[in-house]
């Protein structure tokens, strides 16, 4: 007995000791959890990826928008068509008149309040704009499209919403569906857990979760995805601790911003703010009943109830939730029935706010990496105002994809690999990159060919050679160069024998023809006459990062350049001899909405305007009668454009670079492993370029002709001055005043009798 009681005593002592230690450990653990909960949750600092916006749409009288286009743009921004527009983000259309209520938006330079706007259109342009007081509005910016964010490697993306940006229906619906005792429980709902256990046991599988919203928040915010009993207990304690420290509305708002609602490639869509943009293309505040219900439906399983992939499933659950909402008196039964009759209403991924443009965002990111640390971009909630023009971007993606499909279908035997391509579009006058496609699958983030693929540019170099020639003062568009077989002795003693594309040669030709027909031998002769150093210097002057080596082969394009750098080079031509650093970002706001930085427009004269104008006129002839004429069938008639094709040796690279008055486009097509494609610049890239230019409503190249130049008519084949009604294939070139040009016998402009000018003028 004694022994036993001693044993019992020992057990009791041991047990109480163990209990004491356990209790202390438990308290310590709770204290530790409390530390985590209060410290991490107090500031409630989510890492906020920088949000990137497209360029805002400017509305003004004369803007070439018909009512249809304008309505299309409003829909793209998620504006809702209603009978009586009073809420931000809604509009009404009556024929050619559109009344809208804009959204409040913090631009980089000012806060724009929500306001009413009445726009009338006539034909294809805006005829008038006025505000609610009927006062004229000369110019107005719509809130820009959110095109993506710069999220960190683990991929959490979100758009934070304040309580006043949340429709009242959302918390109400969340409570009914997920946690009916939310307002009264202390973090854990024991009854709900028991009910869930019974239901799950009966069903033999997990059907109900008994977690409160607070527990769900804890799980998402603090814990990983492991489902163990230990985790559950930890979760329950942390939920209770949260409830001790924070008010219910705070917890609800945290939940709304935290919870996972879907996956978009590498990025995880967190919070209802981003989910609203991702699924509906508009701010959370503007969601209607059926849309709120759909998002709430997805909480339980964002991929299982993904409305884009499993529409039926998502719809069934949405409608169940609408029913529940009516049952619990959050909405009237009739409203729920009406909402249940509506379609899901999700926007296509890739066509609206949910989409993102990896190649372009890559450029944005690289631009900003010069000034900001990675953490600033992925965590500090910056707002980045980019230069992307979504309609042009969409057309660029489409033009490339369609043309590559067509080229591959036209092949007799299937190619071992897929053709790839790049499109870069800029606004030449301000150097803004308005579209960028980095590969055939535009939505796929991967190797960004537009920035990183340096390929031989072939005849794209020629305009630079011709510019150097014209700037030397010794040549003009009618000057004669010899297109004949030649040998050039290189520095290493070898003989270089360049050939023409046709293996033929044209003899003496004027510059304008040599460039139009992309004659290699004439160009090499010209380049050597001007001097290699003069030519290679010109590349650098126009904006190429590195001066090419002073080798004769450079005259035919043996120089590797990335498409974005080709765009920079040609931008100088399109911009009349001014270099403007290409930009993808206009400005940056910090997390509090204060202006951080702007990337201002800069211009630098890098070539004589008159010389550039003459070369541009020659590039117009490339499109009229040279290697670019294949574009004419696709382009609107009368549209004046200038450009140049490029084909590298053995048809490895197909290039085209060309511009109108308002757009410069550079297109590349080739294989990633640099094997021959069998395509020339004209048979490949030119077609993409022409499709794009015809789709985006661009304007003619009509730069002002410098006062030192005069037009004169010459024969395309011979370069001889001739009256238009007399010579063969007569075209107009521009040359400096006072230039003397040989005339075609019998077709003299200042021949006997009245001069050509006299007749033209009178």
């Amino acid at each position, binding site marked *: 007995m004694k022994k036993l009681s001693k044993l019992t005593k020992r057990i009791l002592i041991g047990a109480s000791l163990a209990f004491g230690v356990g209790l202390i450990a438990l308290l310590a653990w709770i204290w530790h959890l409390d530390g985590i909960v209060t410290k991490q949750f107090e500031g409630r600092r989510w890492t906020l990826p920088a949000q990137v916006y497209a360029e805002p749409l*400017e509305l003004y009288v004369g803007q070439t928008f018909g009512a249809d286009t304008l309505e299309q743009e409003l829909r793209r921004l998620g504006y809702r068509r209603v009978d009586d527009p009073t809420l931000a983000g809604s509009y009404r259309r009556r024929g050619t008149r559109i009344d809208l209520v804009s959204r409040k938006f913090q631009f980089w330079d000012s806060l724009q309040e929500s306001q009413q706007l009445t726009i009338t259109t006539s034909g294809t342009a805006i005829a008038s704009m006025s505000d609610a007081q009927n006062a004229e509005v000369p110019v107005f910016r719509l809130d820009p499209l959110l095109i993506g964010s710069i999220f960190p490697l683990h991929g959490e993306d979100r758009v934070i919403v304040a309580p006043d940006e949340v429709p009242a229906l959302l918390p109400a619906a969340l409570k009914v569906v997920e946690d009916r005792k939310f307002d009264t429980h202390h973090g854990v709902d024991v009854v709900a857990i028991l009910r869930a256990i019974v239901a799950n046991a009966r069903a033999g599988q997990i059907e109900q979760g008994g977690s409160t919203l607070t527990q769900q928040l804890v799980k998402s915010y603090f814990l990983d995805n492991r489902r163990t009993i230990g985790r559950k207990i930890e979760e329950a304690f942390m939920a209770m601790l949260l409830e001790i420290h924070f008010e219910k509305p705070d917890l609800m708002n945290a939940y709304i911003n935290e919870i996972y609602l879907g996956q978009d490639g590498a990025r995880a869509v967190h919070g209802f703010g981003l989910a609203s943009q991702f699924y509906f293309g508009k701010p959370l505040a503007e969601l209607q009943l059926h849309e709120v219900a759909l998002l709430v439906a997805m909480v339980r399983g964002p991929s299982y109830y993904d409305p884009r992939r499993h529409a039926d499933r998502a719809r069934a659950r949405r409608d169940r939730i609408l029913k529940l909402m009516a049952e619990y008196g959050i909405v009237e039964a009739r409203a729920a029935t009406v909402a249940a009759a509506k379609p899901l209403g999700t926007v296509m991924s890739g066509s609206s706010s949910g989409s993102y443009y990896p190649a372009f965002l890559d450029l944005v990111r690289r631009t900003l990496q010069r000034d900001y640390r990675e953490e600033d971009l992925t965590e500090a909630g910056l707002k980045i105002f980019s230069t992307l023009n979504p309609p042009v971007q969409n057309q660029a993606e489409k033009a490339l994809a369609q043309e590559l499909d067509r080229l591959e279908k036209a092949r007799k035997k299937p190619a071992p690999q897929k053709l790839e391509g790049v499109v870069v579009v800029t606004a030449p006058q301000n150097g803004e990159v308005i579209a960028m496609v980095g590969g055939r699958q535009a939505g796929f983030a991967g190797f960004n060919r537009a920035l990183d693929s340096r390929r031989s540019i072939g005849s794209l170099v020629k305009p630079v050679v011709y510019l150097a020639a014209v700037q030397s003062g010794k040549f003009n568009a009618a000057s004669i160069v010899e297109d004949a077989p030649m040998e050039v002795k290189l520095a290493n003693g070898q003989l270089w024998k360049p050939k023409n594309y046709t293996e033929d040669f044209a003899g003496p030709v004027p510059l304008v023809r040599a460039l139009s027909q992309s004659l290699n031998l004439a160009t090499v002769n010209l380049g050597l006459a001007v001097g290699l150093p003069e030519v290679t210097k010109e590349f650098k002057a126009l904006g190429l990062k590195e001066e090419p080596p002073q080798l004769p082969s450079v005259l035919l394009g043996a120089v590797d350049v990335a498409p974005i750098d080709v765009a920079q080079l040609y931008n100088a031509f399109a911009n009349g001899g001014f270099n403007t650093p290409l930009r993808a970002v206009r400005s940056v706001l910090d997390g509090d909405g204060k202006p951080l930085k702007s990337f201002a427009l800069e211009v630098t004269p890098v070539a004589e305007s008159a010389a550039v104008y003459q070369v541009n006129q020659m590039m117009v002839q490339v499109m009229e009668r040279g290697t670019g004429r294949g574009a004419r069938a696709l382009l609107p008639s009368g549209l004046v454009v200038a450009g140049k094709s490029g084909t590298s040796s053995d048809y490895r690279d197909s290039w085209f670079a060309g511009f109108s008055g308002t757009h410069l486009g550079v297109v590349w097509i080739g294989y990633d492993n640099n094997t021959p494609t069998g395509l020339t610049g004209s048979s490949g890239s030119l077609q993409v370029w022409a499709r794009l230019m015809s789709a985006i409503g661009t304007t003619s190249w009509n730069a002002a002709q*410098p006062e030192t130049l005069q037009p004169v008519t010459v024969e395309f084949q011979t370069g001889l001055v001739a009256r238009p009604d007399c010579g063969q294939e007569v075209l107009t070139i521009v040359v400096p005043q006072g230039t003397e040009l040989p005339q075609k016998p019998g077709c003299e402009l200042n021949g006997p009798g009245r001069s050509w000018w006299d007749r033209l003028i009178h």
Partner: protein
Amino acid sequence: MSVKRCSSAAALLAVLLVLGACAVPQPYRVPSPATTPTSPSGSSPTTTTPAPTPEAIPEPTPLPAPVVKEPTLSSASRALVAQAQSQAAAKNFPVAAASIERALRIEPDNPLLWIELGKVRQEEGNYVQAENMARKALSMSINAPRTQSTAWKLIADSYRARGKNVEAQDAQRRSEGVSR
């Protein structure tokens, strides 16, 4: 490679002789307008005057003086420029420049807007960009003497601010010259 296959020096002296020797028509000389405007290219402050016309070559009738066509601002641009001017008056130069850039996206070919942007840069102390903006404006203000004059004035101011007085005087002269 020169186009002048017949010796133009000889042509100056004896047109008929040269014509006979070459058996081709005399070269065509591209005419100049009646009034010779200053170089608009503006890549260098020095004027390039056309070579004197040789007496011996029959001239085509000089072109009539071009019609003067000064640019104007659209109402959208006017509103944005007014906004920019008040922002610049408040020394908020980046925002003022952003307002003019908005207008430039609407009217990229309007030299008046490039001049306005240049003025903001000048006030801000970015004299090189002020000059460059003015040169950009010059390249598009053809047959617009008043606009050219304003642009040259801005170039003169920009040079002066950098202490380049000789160049400033030259630009000032051009400003006064073309405005006549």
